[in-house]
């Protein structure tokens, strides 16, 4: 699994808007860059990121080669109830990984 750093408050008041920061270890190889042998390195990027709150999609991003290596995103969601936020990255060469973070809403 690629290393992912997900930062969000573990507890929040109901109705509060919380900020989520995510960082994923990934080269985001553009497909436009020559490798050591002079030939272009094949494209290898994360193409999509989805955040779900108890299974319901609350945020989605489509990435292109113009997204920097080790893709970073910050976005917000409303803390509705205690539950699980799941973060899924998918991409080229069958890349797919999901990480869950629990949140307690009071």
């Amino acid at each position, binding site marked *: 699994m690629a290393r992912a750093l997900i930062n969000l408050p573990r507890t929040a008041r109901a109705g509060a*808007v*919380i900020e989520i920061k995510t960082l994923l270890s990934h080269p985001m190889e*553009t497909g*436009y860059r020559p490798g050591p042998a002079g030939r272009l390195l094949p494209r290898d990027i994360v193409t999509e990121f989805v955040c779900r*709150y108890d299974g*319901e*999609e*609350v*945020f*989605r*991003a*489509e*990435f*292109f*080669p*113009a*997204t*920097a*290596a080790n*893709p*970073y*995103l*910050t*976005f*917000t*969601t*409303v803390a*509705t109830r205690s539950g699980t936020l799941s973060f899924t990255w998918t991409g080229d060469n069958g890349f797919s990984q999901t990480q869950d973070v629990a949140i307690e809403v009071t």
Partner: protein
Amino acid sequence: MTPPPDRRAVLSGGAGLLGVLLVRPAAARAPREATAAAIRRFAGEAAVRPGRVALDMPPLVENGNSVPLAITVESPMTEADHVRRIAVFNDKNPQPNVVTLHLGPRAGRAAVATRIRLSDSQTVTAVAEMSDGSYWSATADAIVTLAACVEG
């Protein structure tokens, strides 16, 4: 914010010789055809008006490999009135699309940030699609310089 170096300093800095790119993009120039077409694909036939979108990007970029970009859109983010999508376009990279973000009332705020690649000094455009079907945009210019003493 680092002030952009004045012209004389740049020239005397041996800029061109080191391969440092300091080309000021023309202000309010129409985007290249590929970029205009990509915006068209995103917005369809709807008019894209300037306003309601704030695009925060440093005017002088230390390295085009990673450029911080923050976007906020004026919107109450309610069921009745919210931002549906935000798309970012560039004008000089090999492909015009940078990132497309899908939001909704559950976001609470229309405030996102990411890091992008810029192959050259250029204009970046963000377009927001609202729940009423209107489209709003903002642009920002960046001058991209290259780091000195790069891997040779």
